[in-house]
C-alpha cells in the first residue's frame, strides 16, 4: 500500500485552520469559540486514545479483549440512545430497551458478517471486527433513538386518540398501530436516504478513508456496499425491536396507556 504517513507537523498545520476559525468566530461574537476549541481538543485526545487501544488490541488478539471492548461500546451506545430522548422510559427500561435492541441486531448482524462473509482467521480479528461493530452501533443507535423518540412523542401528543380507542375495546397494540409503524419508518429513513444518495451526493466516509489510505477504489467500493447493507439490516431490525419493546411498555397488563412510565422533561 502506498499510504502517506502524516507527521505531527501536518496535523499542526490543519490545527492552525481550526485556530483561525476560532479567532474569526470570536471576532463575530458567535459564542461558539469555547465549544469549538474544546471539541477540537476532545477529538484529538479521544481519537489518540482509541488509537492506542486499537494498537494494543491488534497486537494482542484475544476473544476476551474483543468481548470486553464490544460490551463497552454497546453500553456507551445504549446510554447515548437514552440521552437523546426527550422523555425516556423511567428506571432500567430507559437504558435497557435501546441496549437490548442494539445488542440483538448489531451483534447478530456483525457476527454473521465476520464469520460467514469476511471469514478471517480468527473471525474476531480486531482489524475487521472493531470498525465493523463501531459503524453498526453508531448507525443503529441513531435509528433506534429516532424511532423511540417518535414513539414516545406521538404517544404523548395523541393520548386522547389512543385512549378513545382503548375505551371502545381496542387493545393497546391496535390503538398504537399507526404510531408504531410511523416510528419504525422514522428510524429507517436515514439509512434508506444515505443508501440512495451514496456515491452521487456523498462519498461515504469509510470508502473515502480506504481510498486515502491507498486501497484500489473498486475494493473500497465493495467494502462500502457491504457496510451499507449491514448497516441497513442492523438499523432496520434494531429499530423494529426497540419500537415493539417500547410500545409494549406504554401499556400495562390491563391495556391502560401508561405515560407515567416516561420521564417528564
Amino acid at each position, binding site marked *: 500500500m502506498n499510504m502517506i504517513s502524516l507527521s505531527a507537523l501536518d496535523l499542526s498545520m490543519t490545527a492552525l485552520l481550526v485556530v483561525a476559525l476560532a479567532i474569526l468566530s470570536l471576532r463575530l461574537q458567535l459564542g461558539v469559540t469555547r465549544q469549538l476549541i474544546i471539541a477540537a481538543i476532545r477529538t484529538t485526545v479521544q481519537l489518540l486514545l482509541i488509537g492506542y487501544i486499537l494498537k494494543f488490541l491488534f497486537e494482542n488478539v484475544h476473544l476476551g479483549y474483543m468481548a470486553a471492548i464490544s460490551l463497552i461500546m454497546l453500553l456507551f451506545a445504549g446510554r447515548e440512545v437514552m440521552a437523546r430522548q426527550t422523555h425516556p422510559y423511567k428506571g432500567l427500561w430507559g437504558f435497557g430497551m435501546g441496549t437490548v435492541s442494539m445488542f440483538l441486531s448489531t451483534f447478530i448482524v456483525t457476527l454473521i458478517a465476520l464469520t460467514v462473509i469476511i471469514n478471517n482467521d480468527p473471525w474476531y480479528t480486531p482489524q475487521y471486527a472493531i470498525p465493523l461493530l463501531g459503524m453498526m452501533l453508531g448507525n443503529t443507535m441513531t435509528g433506534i433513538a429516532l424511532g423511540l423518540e417518535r414513539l414516545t412523542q406521538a404517544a404523548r401528543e395523541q393520548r386522547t386518540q389512543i385512549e378513545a380507542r*382503548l375505551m371502545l*375495546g381496542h387493545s393497546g397494540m391496535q390503538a398504537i398501530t399507526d404510531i408504531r409503524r410511523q416510528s419504525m419508518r422514522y428510524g429507517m429513513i436515514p439509512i434508506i436516504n444515505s443508501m440512495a444518495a451514496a456515491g452521487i451526493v456523498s462519498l461515504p466516509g469509510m470508502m473515502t478513508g480506504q481510498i486515502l489510505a491507498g486501497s484500489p477504489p473498486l475494493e473500497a467500493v465493495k467494502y462500502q456496499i457491504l457496510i451499507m447493507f449491514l448497516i441497513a439490516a442492523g438499523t432496520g431490525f434494531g429499530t423494529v425491536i426497540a419500537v415493539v419493546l417500547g410500545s409494549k411498555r406504554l401499556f400495562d397488563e390491563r391495556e391502560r396507556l401508561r405515560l407515567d412510565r416516561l420521564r417528564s422533561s
Partner: protein
Amino acid sequence: MTSLRVEDVGNKWLPAKISLNVAAGECAVISGPSGVGKSLLLRSIADLDEHNGRVSLGDSVCADVPVTEWRRKVGLLAADSAWWSEKVADHMPKIPSEQLAMLGFGKEVMRWSVDRLSTGEKQRLAILRLLANKPSVLLLDEPTANLDPDSVQKVEQLLLEYCRNKPAALIWVSHDIAQAERIADSRYHFDEKGLNEVKS
C-alpha cells in the same frame, strides 16, 4: 339482570372510596362541582386507570374479564370525542340508518372526513360509535354539554331508549339540573366528601 356494582373504588387521584349500584334499565345521574373526580370515577369503572376496590357486572368481576371485552361491555363516552383517522367510517362499523336518522344524520355521513364535522356532530357520532359495541353499561361524561337544545333532546331520547330496551345500566354525569330531573331514575351528588345519593 346484569347490574353494575361499584364497591370502594378509588386510586391516588381519587382518594374517596366510591360505591354505587346501577341496575340494568336504570339511569343514575351524578352531579357535583368540577375537579372532584367524576371523570376519574368513570375511567376507573372502565378500567382505564389503575384503581382499588371492585367493579362487577352481573356475575363477572372486572379484574377477571379480558380488558378489551370489559370495555366493550362497559362503554365510556369521554367529554370530548377523539378521532384517529381521516374518514368517519374508519372509526366504526356500519350504523343502522334509523339510528343515524335519530340523531339527524343521513347515510352519507360515513363518507365524510372528520375535519368537516362540528364539535356537536362529532359528539353525536361518538355516541353512535359507542352504541355500535352494544354495551351493557354506558358511562356518559357530560354527553350533551356541547349540543344545541334540539340535539340534546334527541340524544336523551336515544340513550334512554337504549337503556330501557337493551336493558343497559347508565351512569350519566350532568351539571344540568333540569336534565337530571328529566332523565334520572336515581341521583347522586359527588363532592369532596364523596358520592351520596340524593333522595327526592
